């Protein structure tokens, strides 16, 4: 296992740059972009835990994001502190993850993938028909201000919060890569039968990864709700959001530390570029491009941008070592 030092330095640099932006910049559009990037990077990393490191593709990741967003809306509309939404949303998300994962995570991958679609569909119906969850209308959060209300007039504090979440998630992933859990997950992916035969409890370790994955997405959901101040099923729990999250995870490189962050940058740039060049034509070119990218990566570079770079570095090192 390589040393964690370069990763920590890189993370430190990103945090420093982010703080500089949060306190130095006033431009709402740029700060919005930074916030969005960080949020997507967190969601991508959350997905990466179960789909990359554990190797079980989740198509319903938006529901965990939604747990946080809805917890936030419920807390605020019931006069509770939105800070409570972080543990609350995380608990519900982890419970949903266990419900989805327990029957399926010991089995071949597609059982799990289908279960994520099914549970996501169930959750969506549940939300859309529950008056206490705002049905299809969702919630508009009343405007407030200050750290107690977790709402701010300026974008700086939001960027700081997103940065903190991003740092926690990246640190956790650095730890994962060096932990027993990470080792077992890698072993299971590398040689499933061999790992299982030496008694690695697949279901247990994957459930841990999935639950943490859900918790991270829920935290991002809280932040999203407090930032956008409006949530409804299509913007939080629908299949389209799950697709976006998976896209971010796949593009950067599954099972890599910096893959999701890279994927988030690519995704945001791509979405803006598509809107700029092709938007207004009324055609589905955005889907064509996203779909083509996923297909190409899956067929040619299944470990994404970062995976390819890491491979190239390893190969060069290997070559120089051999020489």
């Amino acid at each position, binding site marked *: 296992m390589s040393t964690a030092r370069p990763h920590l330095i890189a993370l430190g640099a990103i945090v420093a740059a982010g703080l500089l932006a949060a306190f130095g910049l006033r431009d709402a559009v740029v700060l*919005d972009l930074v916030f969005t990037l960080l949020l997507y990077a967190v969601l991508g990393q959350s997905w990466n835990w179960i789909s990359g490191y554990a190797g079980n593709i989740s198509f319903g990741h938006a529901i965990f994001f939604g747990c946080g967003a809805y917890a936030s809306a419920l807390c605020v509309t019931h006069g509770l502190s939105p800070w409570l939404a972080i543990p609350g949303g995380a608990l519900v998300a982890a419970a949903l993850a266990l419900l989805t994962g327990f029957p399926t995570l010991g089995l071949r991958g597609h059982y799990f993938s289908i279960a994520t679609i099914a549970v996501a569909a169930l959750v969506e119906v549940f939300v859309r028909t529950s008056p206490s969850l705002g049905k*299809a209308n*969702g919630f*508009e959060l009343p405007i407030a201000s200050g750290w107690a209300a977790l709402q701010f007039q300026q974008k700086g504090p939001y960027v700081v919060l997103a940065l903190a979440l991003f740092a926690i998630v990246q640190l956790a992933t650095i730890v994962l890569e060096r932990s027993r859990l990470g080792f077992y997950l890698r072993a299971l992916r590398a040689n499933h039968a061999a790992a299982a035969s030496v008694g690695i409890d697949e279901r247990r370790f994957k459930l841990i990864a999935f639950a943490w994955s859900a918790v991270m997405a829920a935290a991002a959901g809280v932040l999203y709700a407090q930032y956008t101040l409006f949530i409804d099923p*299509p913007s939080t729990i629908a299949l389209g959001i799950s697709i976006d999250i998976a896209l971010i995870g796949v593009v950067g490189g599954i099972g890599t530390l910096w893959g999701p962050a890279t994927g988030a940058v690519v995704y945001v740039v791509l979405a803006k570029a598509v809107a700029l060049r*092709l938007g207004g*034509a*009324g*055609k589905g*070119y955005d889907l064509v491009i996203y779909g083509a990218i996923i297909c190409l990566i899956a067929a040619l570079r299944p470990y994404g941008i970062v995976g390819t770079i890491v491979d190239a570095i390893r190969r060069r090192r290997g070559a120089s070592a051999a020489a």
Partner: protein
Amino acid sequence: MLARRLSASLAVVALAVLGGGPTRAAAPPEIVIGSVLPLTGGSAQTGALLRTAQQLAADLVNGHVSYPLPMVGKSGLPHLGHARIRLVFADSQGKPDQARAAAEQLITQEHAVALIGTYASSTTATASQVAERYGVPFLNPDSSAPGLTARGLKWFFRTTPHDGTFAENFFQFFADMKKKNKSFAVKRVAIVGEDGLFGTGASDAEEALVKKNGYELATRIAYTATTSEVNAEIQKIKTAAPDVIMQASYVPDALLYMRGYKQQGVDVKAILAQDAGFIDPTFIKTLGADAEGIFTREVFSLEIKHRNQAVPLIDQLFRERAGKPLDGNSARDFMGVLVLADAIDRAGSTKPDAMRKALQATNIPGKLTLMPWNRIHFDATGQNDGGVGIIEQVQDGKYQTVWPFDVAVRPAIWPMPAWKR
């Protein structure tokens, strides 16, 4: 891409810091109106039409050809030295967070003096919040969730009637029919709606009015639009034995229900639909004679030409650009730009407060619009209180306006004909 954006934004920051920044002359040569629309994503097709409609309206305001419409053909805004309107579009992707970012970009980077948009109610909710925070007028011509004007926003104005109004139209229609025909009787109402924002909004409004107007709720069905069969739903409705069905569905599900009603012999006096699937061109084409007698509300009809001769002319211009006939969404967005232009012109400046006062004083008679509305005039919440829908009925394979009676082209056939075996 990103680099260019960043540098542009940095330049703006630098300018602002230096105390310079773009200053606004008393009579600007160009007035920037920001438009947030779903230009990519699932509603991209509609977004493209709306953009065409808005651009057409702006071009007509800037042009010199006159039509019986407000602000059209005066070579810009006369009270602002014939300043021209420039629309700047930003993409909402149909997502609330992107709509928010788009609105922010239009206000801070493009210096839009007013915003218009955004089609989906969810994206309108967030974009209008941004406008509220910056103190910029926001005109919403096309979102129908009733709650949007119940938020107490100062800068939010909506020209289109909302779901509540459309549902009310059904009951006004009943009342008007009763006045004409003493034997007209409706008691039990079944409400059927898909469980998304559209169907839920419509069904909620209908249910409230059923009780308020002394009717009986036979049953209320909520279902997921992407279903492949509606066996259970049809049996529920049949068992409830309603007099009329009020329905909000998209195309595939509307067809499933219509076939189900016929097969299972669900005999009702009328099916009253909330446009969408029931006014799609596919609906009559697919169902043929089985579509006869269906009522549906609409926001607009090309038949309104007998009230305003501009309707076919604008339709013609729109067809040339969009390759499609002018529809209700496009007509509403077209009118939205004119309403904004009218208010800015009367304000005589682009100062936010002046524009807001002018918007509040808006009073455009119905016959100067493309719409079936009584007038455009905003109440205290910013909702146009002159908006009405129309009710059409499929007669001889075409949608014929049957209500309000003064714009109707045919009398309503009541009850609708029985299913052909």
